[in-house]
């Protein structure tokens, strides 16, 4: 009872490639990965594609199906129209190795940079005692199957290679959150570290990561926002700040994110994180930009290839500031969980590339 369906699959390697058309038989109950396997067994034996468990548990078969980042094994063919052409492309944020396989080593590098669990010094193995309610918060994040779809969809690094050094991405923010919420983790600086070294401030909470998570982890609401809020709590509590000043209590290295810069706005961590790549350039207008103000115009130009940048683009507007040059609100008082999206709050992600309408305000200015 199979029917013939149209597929377009990206074939190529790091030197380039293009979409190839295939007509494949599809049977009832099949998923996209089945179709790829059928192609391998028939007309495209060398079609490269990662997979392992085929049950949505290992996170290997991440790909972009009709532009949406998904797991091939969890995308049922019945979700498409019979006549619909299904387009399968590799993850865009990572360099292509061949066909649907990309070089995801970025994620493993970030994993290595994220400080590991610190066991409590005075608790022997077997004596760990924790309540179910307390472990459940971290357990949500430990459901992560490391498919890296959240990393792939995150617009801080999607098309912005230059942000990669300073930005760990949603996967590792929830790793930090998981350890922060771990009842027995001995380190107390997980949030500050996320802010100062992992680029948490780059995130402006557009929730794309949550949307694509196949494990339905509430990455933004339960992981990133609490981390951001807690950093804010600490930095804005004058008593804590004073105590830290006087008793030098914070175990955290004194960075701009933790030493209580009076000028530090809520999201200044973004500019701070960007400073690694940018020589500390000040970016009042870049604070709320989606990339934290570390644009490199050469990379920008490269990313623009394939997008029609000659059509009319609405001019970016600077945020309204008060008399002190500050935004009149913080994440704590704003009615949304974050600053307004530079794309407009009514835009959902991922955007089809042809609808992209964002350009960095200073992209054409000379470097300083």
């Amino acid at each position, binding site marked *: 009872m199979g029917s013939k369906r149209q597929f377009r699959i990206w074939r190529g390697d790091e030197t380039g490639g293009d979409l190839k058309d295939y007509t494949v038989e599809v049977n009832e*109950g099949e998923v996209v990965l089945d179709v790829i396997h059928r192609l391998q067994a028939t007309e495209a034996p060398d079609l490269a594609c990662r997979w392992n468990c085929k049950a949505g548990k290992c996170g290997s078969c991440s790909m972009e199906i009709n532009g949406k980042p998904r797991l091939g094994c969890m995308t049922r063919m019945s979700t498409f129209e019979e006549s619909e052409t299904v387009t399968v492309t590799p993850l865009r944020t990572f360099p292509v190795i061949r066909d649907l396989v990309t070089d995801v080593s970025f994620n*493993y590098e970030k994993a*290595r940079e994220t400080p590991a669990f610190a066991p409590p010094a005075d608790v022997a193995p*077997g004596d760990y005692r924790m309540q179910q309610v307390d472990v459940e918060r971290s357990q949500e994040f430990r459901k992560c199957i490391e498919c890296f779809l959240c990393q792939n969809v995150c617009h801080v690094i999607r098309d912005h290679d230059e942000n990669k050094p300073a930005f760990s991405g949603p996967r590792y923010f929830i790793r930090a959150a998981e350890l922060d919420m771990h009842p027995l983790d001995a380190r107390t600086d997980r949030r500050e570290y996320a802010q100062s070294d992992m680029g948490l401030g780059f995130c402006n909470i557009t929730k794309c990561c949550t949307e694509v998570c196949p494990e339905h982890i509430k990455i933004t609401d339960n992981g990133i926002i609490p981390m951001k809020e807690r950093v804010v709590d600490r930095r804005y509590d004058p008593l804590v700040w004073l105590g830290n000043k006087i008793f030098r209590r914070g175990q955290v290295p004194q960075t701009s994110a933790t030493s209580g810069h009076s000028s530090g706005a809520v999201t200044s961590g973004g500019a701070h994180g960007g400073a690694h790549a940018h020589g500390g350039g000040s970016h009042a207008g870049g604070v709320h930009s989606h990339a934290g103000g570390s644009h490199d115009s050469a990379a920008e130009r490269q990313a623009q290839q394939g997008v029609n940048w000659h059509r009319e683009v609405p001019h970016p507007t600077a945020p309204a500031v008060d008399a002190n040059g500050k935004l009149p609100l913080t994440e704590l008082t704003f009615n949304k969980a974050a600053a307004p999206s530079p794309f407009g709050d009514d835009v959902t992600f991922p955007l089809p590339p042809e609808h992209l309408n964002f350009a960095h305000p200073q992209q054409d200015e000379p470097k300083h």
Partner: protein
Amino acid sequence: MTETRIERHHYDVVVIGAGGAGLRAAIEARLAGKKTAIISKSLFGKAHTVMAEGGAAAAMGNVNSRDNWQVHFRDTMRGGKFLNNFRMAELHAKEAPQRIWELETYGALFDRTKDGKISQRNFGGHEYPRLAHVGDRTGLELIRTLQQKIVSLQQEDKQEFGSYDARIRVFSETTITELLLDGDRVAGAFGYYRESGEFVLFEAPAVVLATGGVGRSYKVTSNSWEYTGDGHALALRAGATLINMEFLQFHPTGMVWPPSVKGILVTESVRGDGGVLKNSEGKRFMFDYVPDVFRKQYAETEEEADRWYTDPDNNRRPPELLPRDEVARAINSEVKEGRGTPAGGVYLDIASRKSAEEIRRRLPSMYHQFKELADVDITKEPMEVGPTCHYVMGGVEVDPDSGAAFGTVRGLYAAGEVSGGMHGSNRLGGNSLSDLLVFGKRAGGHAATYTDQLTTRPAVSVAAVEAAVETALAPLQRDTGESPYQLQQDLQVVMGDLVGIIRREGELADAMRRLAELRERVAKVSAAGGRRYNPGWHLALDLRNMLVVSECTAKAALERQESRGGHTREDYPAMDPKWRSVNLVCSLDGDAVRLTHKPLPKMRPELIGLFDRAELAKYLTDEELAEFDALTEEANN
């Protein structure tokens, strides 16, 4: 061949396989100060261990304080029908709790009891609630924890030596095709990077095999593509021996619909949490299939079985929780007798027994798996399930204490599914995760000790490397042979149809003939395309391993004239005590598989004394029983 570029690395210990056993072995070798490489066939953290759902069995006694290692040992031996290597079962039962507690110091977060300890759940074949678990994704927790422990060791090394890779390095998407020997000693391992197709040579005096199982030789399997018996075949070719290869576990409950997910596992916890098996007539049929050896431990009425979930001390267990081989056979015969579902399985019903909310909380990943893969809401309708090839009990014959491979080779270790003996003829659910930890640690530690004892480092011979290169490139250079996908399909048909759950002499002999034909075709396989991430080429190289391991299974299955655990002969339907004391050992004689009989090691008196005479009488020969009686008499005097 001199123009072929080969990357060279020097390590003290090379661990092949990055699942639970491999990672635990690598951690141990690194903790012993050895420079350690981990070879992973797929990306780091994707190994098949993530598929384990139920939990890790360890007699911590957190839920029922009557549990202890002796009870666990007894359950394991019983489950394996007394064919287990008793020493491995003993070590496993004794050390499993420490290995689980150790995971907590690495950051694992198991589900908790009310008093804050690690919660433990019921599982088939285990007398008490014993499985440490995290919802139904325990395997993921285990692999992630070990992965993160390795990262933490790398961070220590970075501080000390300035490089993450100073003492432990992960080679992801790398396949080993040959072990290289210096005389009878392991000298290294040769393979290729899947991504680039470039060759890589590891020079190392000790190799730990932790490559998992062989399920990809079967049509309906819960195993991923990685499970091609690489470690089994590498060991054979290096002069090691395999035991118990006739014993394959068919998990009783794999999904049978839709066809694309056929084989994917439905965790046993569904049954542990109250799910029942029904045939197309709506009958709860498992009560008809309780074998005599288990009669005493299992409920006879539905009422008693249902009471057990809340009052396990005063009621006997529901027969749905019989060991896996029994349940798989029961389902098989229900379907055969025409009482199966349209898709050829039976119904597994939890919807009518638990509230929707409770199902979603207790079995979250099952709920999602069915919702998203099959569009079935398990809180509303029953699942359709049937047996699927799940686990191979057989594997590399090892020294129980050290994990060192027997046979003619030195410096080769094996742990986890690739090793044999621990589980006898049938593995209990939950025993594999703890097996990985217990014997992974042992193998890694002993491999490290072995390298300390060496006075000279074994050397890799140039000729052997050249031969390995030639073998690896051959499928790409031929264009006259068959497609590897076709050959794999044909192999799966032979194994699934002729060496499956129920076996017959004639069919097994037929399988041997067909495997011999396949061997010739596999020798001429050709792969289209280049070396860069070419799945066709990868499969062509794996086929050789799948084939030799399948030959071992078919040959041993033909030889063993009885039914026991994961080996069921229609022509010899009963267990035969004479066969209980025999292991079938496979080795390579040139290219051909040679099969020999070897007596099982004799259980120590204090261990055999843990069993009732009445129970032993079902398994032991008269002579063995007489010996047991003499022992008890001696003890009483």
